[in-house]
């Protein structure tokens, strides 16, 4: 990481969810300040219900923070936009679109001509290893393949930042390992600034340049930061890998 341009800057974010009546208030996030530099792979780790998805959705612009601001390249984030690409835990593909139709959707919205966007989309379909499945519909694909489409769809739109919200949470262990490898490979081929949310410490150590942990109960606060300097590609059973995992596990409530 030689390039140290700040891409994403979160300033003192907090979020309180109010129920309709306004009587019950649930504080979800509190005083989160965080910055991500260009082409950095940041992983946010925390147990379930700790506010990590909310944090990512605020950065995406899908939720508004109760206090604080998010900046992308120095400009305040006020809503969702194509400069951030999102990969969802539940895939959230458009079921009426083929793999090709899903991957090229962002480009279509951006007004790119059909021939051009086919070309770009094909490139990313190949990158995620789905060549030959261009005409398949999402319901014909396995979970891992669906998430490959999700990643290709986000990548194809050429966002400045890629946001991944527990993208492999619904996959079985084998597929999950494979997809982690694939994510590392794709990221090494086409570098991006990435914010990746997960509840798996192992996944975090495998993928991250830097890991931030959130506290295990609401409201979510930042707990610690770990810089992962292990060489890539990483091995799950390397001594340093296991030591890193051990250190983080000891300091968090997660038993992973």
């Amino acid at each position, binding site marked *: 990481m030689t390039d140290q341009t700040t891409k994403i800057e979160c300033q003192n974010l907090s979020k309180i969810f109010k129920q309709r009546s306004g009587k019950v208030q649930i504080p979800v996030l509190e005083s989160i300040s965080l910055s991500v530099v260009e082409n950095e792979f940041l992983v946010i780790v925390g147990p379930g219900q700790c506010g990590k998805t909310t944090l990512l959705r605020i950065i995406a612009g*899908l939720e508004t923070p109760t206090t604080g601001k998010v900046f992308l390249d120095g400009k305040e984030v006020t809503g969702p936009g194509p400069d951030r690409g999102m990969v969802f835990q539940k895939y959230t593909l458009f079921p*009426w679109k083929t793999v090709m139709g899903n991957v090229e959707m962002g480009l279509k*919205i951006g007004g790119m001509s059909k021939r051009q966007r086919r070309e770009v989309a094909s490139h990313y379909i190949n990158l995620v290893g789905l060549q030959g499945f261009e005409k398949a519909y999402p319901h014909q694909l396995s979970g891992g393949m669906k998430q490959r489409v999700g990643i290709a769809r986000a990548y194809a739109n050429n966002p400045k930042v890629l946001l991944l919200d527990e993208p492999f949470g619904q996959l079985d262990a084998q597929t999950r390992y494979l997809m982690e490898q694939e994510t590392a490979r794709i990221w090494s081929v086409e570098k991006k600034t990435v914010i990746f949310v997960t509840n798996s410490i192992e996944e975090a150590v495998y993928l991250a340049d830097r890991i931030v942990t959130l506290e295990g109960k609401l409201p979510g606060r930042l707990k610690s930061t770990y810089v992962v300097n292990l060489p890539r590609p990483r091995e799950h059973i390397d001594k340093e890998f296991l030591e890193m995992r051990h250190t983080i596990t000891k300091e968090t409530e997660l038993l992973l």
Partner: protein
Amino acid sequence: MKTTMGHTVSVHAASHGNGKGTAAHIGKVVKNRYVLYFVSIVSLLVIWHFSAVIGESSKYMPTPAMVLTELWRIAHENLAGKNLLGHLWSSMHRVLIGFAIGSLVGVPLGLFMALNRYLNALVKPIFDLFKPMPPISWISLAILWFGIGEESKVFIIAIGAFVPALINSYNGIRLVDPALYDAIRMLGANRWQTMIEVTFPAGFPALFAGLQIALSVAWSCVLAAELVSARSGMGFLIILGMTMSNPAMILSGMVVIAITAYLITVVLSNVEKWVCPWKVELPQ
């Protein structure tokens, strides 16, 4: 295809003189879905036949064979100026016009109500008041307003088709998975693009289901309307059978009505496969 192959295999096994193989073969045939369908239909016809020939009952209950003969007769002979196909077309004609009017009003209104909450708040209370009224309960008013001609029947059918067309297009749009909106907005879509790329395609299957229901409601409405007053149509044919005390004619009409309704369903579900190839098929 699969079943046929299964048959060949087990026939081979049986021909080797293996007693166990024969039993397995019989078991397989008995459990075959199409064999069971056949058994089901044949038993219905047999039970029907014998219940019709016992005692005096065939006066009121014709046998299946009598119904077939009657079908053949009314297909060729003119009743009130039309043969069976002519009457079927009279009903179909009314259904198509009424269905078209009902869905052309219902679908857009449902869409607008789902998209605009002010319009929804204005229209929904009125609609909820009218919704539970069976369409046929309008028949007396319809005859007073439009006379006993085509208009009153089309009116009833249009009302019958309007309700499910509106409800389903409304719900289809309202129940779109909000996560899909997140996804399209993250790709940079504005409000118009969101509507074109997510709202309409996501709501379409429910809208289409609404049209399917509307068409079958329209089909039952036309019969009800024709039973009350008509000089043509399948409902008229049944009433004619009653006044001529010809139960075979009534049953012939009912059979044709059922087959028509079934064909409409088959055609529409094939149209659906064509327009929604992405919809997950339910196993039978």
